[in-house]
């Protein structure tokens, strides 16, 4: 019987454990814990903000499960703590801590949450090396990887998922053609006879790609797969998500057209998302077995397990905790200062003030009317097939729409809120297949953007503007640089997070618009936005009704 066998038997059965907990705390344990807490606390404000921002994003909804997985993995690794480890070399510590600290300071000043997460990962690595040298670092490195890699920047996730979604729609469209199913694709929208499917909704299974990556990473690290195998499994996971969604879209359209079975209804949609997620995980497990069959088993044997301890005298192992020097305390203070800087930056930007409660001041019972325009609703069966009402959808929580017919022009007016700062509406239209032509900025009565849109068979005219709660009209130049490095270097802007309201007028036609028609649309937009802005400012909380 091997030693592993003895240990496992000892752990499972009732005999005395080989690994004993310390009878009294190790000297130096408290300073090390305090130092670690100070270092990690320095990251806390930005990480809290990251959690709050990413929380509502569907692609990050797996994060709590990821944390549980990380905890479990940490517990596992703690049980398998190597019997011999000594603190890392002091001469290497500045090389590990200082880049992490610099990154944290940069994240704090520039107010970039994800950078703080990366800095946190590096700091954890440095702490592991400081406490247990290279062996402890290697032992816990998977934990750091699991905490950082599946949580990329929010903006990257948006781009990545929209790229995947586009891929899924393109492939679905090609497959529908091969199956001879009539449809028309416009960006992320699939038109089938009598129905318009916005794949953004129909295919939110794409959002599970991040969860699949996280689960694959967890399983790979837990099952001690090699980095190459984990990479292959992640690739397979992404492929499985795309394929599952292609099957879902194509199958849904086929069932709807052939048998009238609607898999895109909200209830079926939710169930389908779970089924797809489960199917992807099963496929991943199957793919892992397939790899075993093709290229052989790949598993690093687990070290002997015991109860989680930081030092173990009973086993005779020499575990020594490092001494916290003055320099280390100074380092901890620098981390703490970075945390305080984050608090200050957040305060200056008005972030902490809006962390709790409603993020905008418009009364919940606010009502709007626009003379000459008729209010419409998305589910109104009287909608014309070419109404822009459905395509002009944004990410806003509230969306009110009106319509108006002026000669041959069928115009849609929309008020969407709340947003924070400037919102580039043209991205929404690009997502529905419109080509964005050269936009022009207007300034009569406040900034607005006029954007000609085109498709191979259609033309569109889009006018939009954003107004904040002080009645200021936002211009892209004024707010556009906030997301650039130069803009962020200017420091926090108190108005960057101010709630804003989007007003747009959109019309589309098979024929190009004449200059007179464009001018007519502009005038109607300017009148409508003035009406809406006036009513909006009068209905903010704190104003007399």
């Amino acid at each position, binding site marked *: 019987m091997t030693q592993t066998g003895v240990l496992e038997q000892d752990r499972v059965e009732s005999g005395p454990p080989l690994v004993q907990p310390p009878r009294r705390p190790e000297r130096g344990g408290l300073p090390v814990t305090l130092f670690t807490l100070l270092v990690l606390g320095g990251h806390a404000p930005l990480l809290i903000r990251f959690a709050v921002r990413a929380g509502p994003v569907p692609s990050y909804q797996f994060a709590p499960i990821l944390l549980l997985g990380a905890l479990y993995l940490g517990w596992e690794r703690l049980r398998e703590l190597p019997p011999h480890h000594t603190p890392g070399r002091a001469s290497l510590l500045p090389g590990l801590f200082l880049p992490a600290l610099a990154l944290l300071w940069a994240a704090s000043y520039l107010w970039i949450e994800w950078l703080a997460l990366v800095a946190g990962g590096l700091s954890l690595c440095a702490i592991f090396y400081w406490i247990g040298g290279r062996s402890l670092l290697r032992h816990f490195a998977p934990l750091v990887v699991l905490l950082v890699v599946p949580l990329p920047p929010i903006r990257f996730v948006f781009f990545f998922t929209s790229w995947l979604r586009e891929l899924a729609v393109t492939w679905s469209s090609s497959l529908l*053609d091969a199956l001879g199913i009539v449809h028309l694709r416009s960006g992320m929208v699939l038109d089938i006879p009598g129905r318009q499917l916005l794949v953004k909704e129909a295919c939110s299974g794409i959002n599970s790609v991040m969860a699949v990556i996280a689960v694959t990473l967890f399983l790979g690290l837990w099952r001690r797969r090699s980095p190459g195998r984990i990479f292959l499994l992640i690739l397979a996971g992404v492929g499985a998500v795309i394929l599952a969604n292609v099957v879902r879209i194509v199958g849904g359209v086929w069932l709807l057209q052939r048998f009238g079975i609607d898999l895109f209804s909200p209830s079926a949609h939710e169930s389908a998302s779970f089924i797809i997620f489960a199917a992807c995980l099963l496929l991943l497990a199957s*793919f892992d077995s397939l*790899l075993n069959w093709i290229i052989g088993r790949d598993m690093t044997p687990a070290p002997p397990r015991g109860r989680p301890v930081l030092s173990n005298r009973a086993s005779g192992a020499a575990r020594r905790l490092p001494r916290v020097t003055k320099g280390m305390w100074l380092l901890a203070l620098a981390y703490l200062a970075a945390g305080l800087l984050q608090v200050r930056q957040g305060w200056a930007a008005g972030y902490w003030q809006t962390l709790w409660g409603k993020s905008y001041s418009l009364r919940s019972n606010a009502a709007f009317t626009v003379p000459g325009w008729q209010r419409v609703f998305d589910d109104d069966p009287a909608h*014309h097939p070419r109404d822009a009402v459905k395509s002009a959808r944004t990410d806003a929580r509230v969306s009110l729409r009106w319509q108006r017919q002026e000669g041959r022009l069928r115009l849609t007016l929309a008020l969407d809120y709340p947003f924070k700062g400037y919102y580039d509406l043209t991205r929404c239209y690009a997502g529905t297949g419109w080509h964005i032509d050269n936009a022009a900025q207007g300034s009569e009565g406040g900034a607005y953007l006029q954007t000609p849109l085109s498709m191979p068979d259609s033309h569109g005219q889009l006018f939009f503007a954003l107004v904040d709660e002080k009645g200021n009209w936002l211009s892209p130049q004024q707010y556009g640089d906030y997301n650039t490095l130069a803009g962020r270097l200017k420091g926090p802007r108190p108005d960057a997070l101010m709630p804003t309201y989007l007003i747009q007028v959109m019309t589309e036609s098979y024929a190009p618009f004449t200059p007179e028609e464009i001018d007519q649309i502009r005038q109607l937009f300017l009148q409508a936005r003035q009406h809406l802005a006036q009513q909006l400012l009068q209905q903010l909380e704190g104003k007399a009704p």
Partner: protein
Amino acid sequence: MSDAFSPSRLARLRSALRAVFHRDGERERFRRDLLLGAPAGLCMLAAIVAFVSVALVSGREVAAQYRLKAWKAQTSNDHATARLCYERLVRENPADKQSLFALAQVLADMGDAPSSLELLDRLAPLDETGFAPAHLALGRQLLAATRPSPQSVHAAEQHLLRAISAQPDLVEAQGLLGRLYALAGRWELAQPHLAAALKNSDELALLMAQVTAARGQADEARSYARRAVAFWAARASLQPTDVAARLAWAQSLLALDDFAGALAVLDRAIVAINDDPRLRLAAATVCAGWIERLEKSPSPDPASALDLLARGLKYDPAQPALLNHLVALTHLSGARSESARKLLNDLLAQGHESAMIHLVLGSDAIARGQLEPAQIHFERAWALDPHLPQVANNLAWLLAFGERPDMARAQSLIKVALQSDPANPHFRDTEGQIHARLGQWKEAISDLEAALPALSDPRRAHAALAESYEHLGMADLAAAHRRQLQVLDQGSEGVAPAFGSGKIGIETPATRP
């Protein structure tokens, strides 16, 4: 049954499963991996097959598939699918004018006329030659209006010319253009287009007969009329309930001066097609035309004319041309006048009351100086049809200048008449006389000056104008109108001015050329 779930069998099953999943050894593990990895392998295989099949489908095949589906959907009135198919075809190839045109047609079928028009305008701009069928469709649409404006007619002409220049064998465009020119009386332009259209079908032979007749080509006209008779007779026999075919057949016979034949066709049609009012009106019109022909003949036959009048009024007691003939007969003296009057009274007594008959009887009563009965007839006519401006005009005149004047009602009635035909000189004259009677001199001058050039008996207008100018202190102009009045009076010595030059007969907008 119990044997199937016996403990020994279950134990055997358990051991078999264990053998599959828990057997140690490299070979067993190899098998197990293969078994568990099979779903992923199959999925990958399916993805590869799908990818290859998608790659093998060419864009041309997809387009052909969509074209076929669009056509099927269009023929089965599945507009939503047809629209989607054509939109897809256009999206793939924006230069595909055939699909764009088909999309415009589908949109029109779906009731989205503005979008359809946008597409047609894009395909066939007015200022350049575009897609011929789109030009034709636009020309057809513009001419389909009940009363196309001169601008619409001009635009339609341009579209049709462009359609023909792009595709000379477009027979419908040739026919429409020929018809357009013929209606405008541009015979020499109409003829070549109609000739081109007639290469395919004799549907326009009747129009061609009328055009050639108008150009004095009598032989060609008769030849085309015969072709038209043959065509429409064949059509009517193929489609016995086709009213338009019967009407065109009768009209073709009229072009050959075969009144009796035309009436026979219409008589048969009235019996066959459930007494269609269009057929009755046409039969009455044939009778009116026949009467006219009899009156113009070198040896008129008044007895036959009166018989035809009675026959025509049986088809349609309100046929304006017949009633006009009746009015003319009432103006004659002697037995025929009495017969005509009796015929009208009989029509009323038989229950064929109509505004037109009352208008005729009222006009006859005025001519005989019987203002009270005239007013009763006009009131009755107005009650029966308040859309007849002639009744409104005559009644307004009687109310203004009769024995018991009611100026307010007279003014409101003449306003109604002018609303329906603002340029009618008789209506303007009546309004002007009413203004003069009320002392509204400037308004009176405005109306009377406008009406004057078109009045057949302008004596009362001159008198009213002289009076108006005098009251406005413009003695020279008043004197000038009095001189004109004297000249006219001398020219018609012994002829009393008609009762109200503004009073008119039963001419209706429909009968006016």
